[in-house]
């Protein structure tokens, strides 16, 4: 990947709403070139989506999130791919990672309440044939996610005018 694309990604990762013209100015590149690079990265699925990071604990309609360690038996020829797919296709599942170490898949699940998450684990996840065991850990508070700190910091502490 070329330097321009990497720089564009660095900026968009921080603020997905930056206009191509602004990005072009900031990077000292031509706007057409920046737009073309973005289009190309969208097409190549390098840029997958422009989403919003939400602090759900601030929303009345609270959600429960759990991380689940899943041990499973890989399938001949396909490894963990099809099991992962069977899991990630559920809308309740927010993320799925294949892990090294004591277990195989790390699954993040979101539900309206404890009961809903528990029921998903016992009815959907544990019952998949190749799943051997699950361990559920509920998330109590999110401090930082994807490089973004959730805590609100005080305003700019600088003096308004300084030499």
């Amino acid at each position, binding site marked *: 990947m070329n330097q321009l694309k990497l720089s564009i990604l660095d900026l968009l990762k921080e603020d997905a709403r930056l206009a191509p013209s602004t990005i072009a*100015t900031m990077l*000292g590149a031509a706007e057409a070139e920046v737009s073309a690079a973005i289009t190309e990265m969208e097409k190549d699925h390098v840029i997958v989506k422009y989403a919003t990071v939400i602090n759900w604990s601030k929303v009345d309609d609270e959600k429960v999130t759990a991380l689940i360690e899943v041990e499973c038996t890989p399938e001949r020829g396909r490894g963990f791919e099809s099991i992962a797919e069977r899991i990630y296709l559920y809308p309740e599942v927010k993320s799925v990672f294949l892990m090294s170490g004591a277990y195989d898949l790390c699954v993040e699940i979101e539900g309206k309440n404890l009961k809903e998450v528990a029921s998903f684990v016992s009815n959907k996840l544990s019952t998949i044939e190749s799943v051997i065991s699950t361990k559920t850990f509920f998330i109590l508070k999110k401090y930082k996610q994807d490089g973004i700190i959730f805590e609100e910091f005080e305003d700019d502490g600088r003096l308004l*005018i300084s030499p």
Partner: protein
Amino acid sequence: MIKDKEVAPRVEQPSQAEGMSRYLNARTRDIPPSGIRRFFDLVSSSKDKEIISLGVGEPDFVTPWRVRDAAVYSLEKGKTQYTPNAGTPELREAIGQYLHDQFSVDYDPDKEIVVTVGGSEGIDLALRALIEPGDEILVPEPTYLPYAPISTLAGGVAVGIETFAKDQFKLTAESLRAAITPRSKVLIFCYPSNPTGAIMTYEEMLPIAKLVEEHDLIVISDEIYAELTYGSRHVSFASLPGMRDRTILVSGFSKAFAMTGWRMGYVCAHPDLIAAMLKIHQYTIMCAPIMAQVAALESLSPTGLEEKDRMIESYNQRRRLVVHGFREIGMPCHEPQGAFYAFPSIQQTGLSSEEFAQRLVLEAKVAAVPGYVFGKGGEGFLRCCYATSVVQLQEALERIGQFLHRIK
């Protein structure tokens, strides 16, 4: 005292000392109040949360966590003692290595480097060590405010040398030559420049160095913004042929390492000069705070340097944005190639920089520093610091654009 009265038209006449002021020495009492201070009071008194400030002189980043953490850890370990007067050997060693790697200048950590309380202390030490009463200190302007008052306190006379937008606010040999008198002793050379963002290249500095040699001057080179150059690498005055012994290099961690509040600076020079400055430092300051020295050392670690580079890249992006923005809204702006200031012209409005800046705060809620406070050549310009978030910069440009439209 500033020699040329035109430089500071707002100098208030020394009043008949009243009350306890009559005990003050005239030198201190008669230093004029700084224009920036007046403007600060105006802006601060408004208490308006909506004001976007481009008036700061410091990074918007807080010190990287690894640096803060190193200081916290040192406190937990009970590192609360004095250090050697010149600073910890480890920090001086690291500064020496860093200056060698970044700017190809070599200083002996044992005899040629003193860690100071901010770069400001370095300027003060240098001037106090060098100046005899009445010696003249040449200062290219517009410039950082404290040089003239510090010169006065040291018993000298600051002589402003005007620089111009047409020269991108670089110091030219002609104007330097014109300002030199038999009393000239020191040239304060501050590039990259606060407030103009101007830099000086190797070729542009050579004729300056020649004059310095011819007239037997000492150069106090304030290189606090050395890391913040965009497009070309900073050239240290000390690296010019024959200039090492004539240069007192002053720098610090405030700007590039986002460490303003730590007050961490250093001064490097010939051992004879350093020995004299160290005397003043040891009797007045003793040593820079140990926890700040620990933090500064961490900022020079390989990962600390990476964090610094990341911040510099971010300033560069915002520099392009803001310069482009000013030109779009019809404010001529020379290309600032260093520091984190843009210095657009407001001459076309017909307002004085003070009037413009005041109305901009009150009517458009954007604070920036009027150019006149920076001395000769500053009138007609506005110092805008772009170390502020992209969203804020865009909003500020929008507001300034609307304001310009209204006052047309």
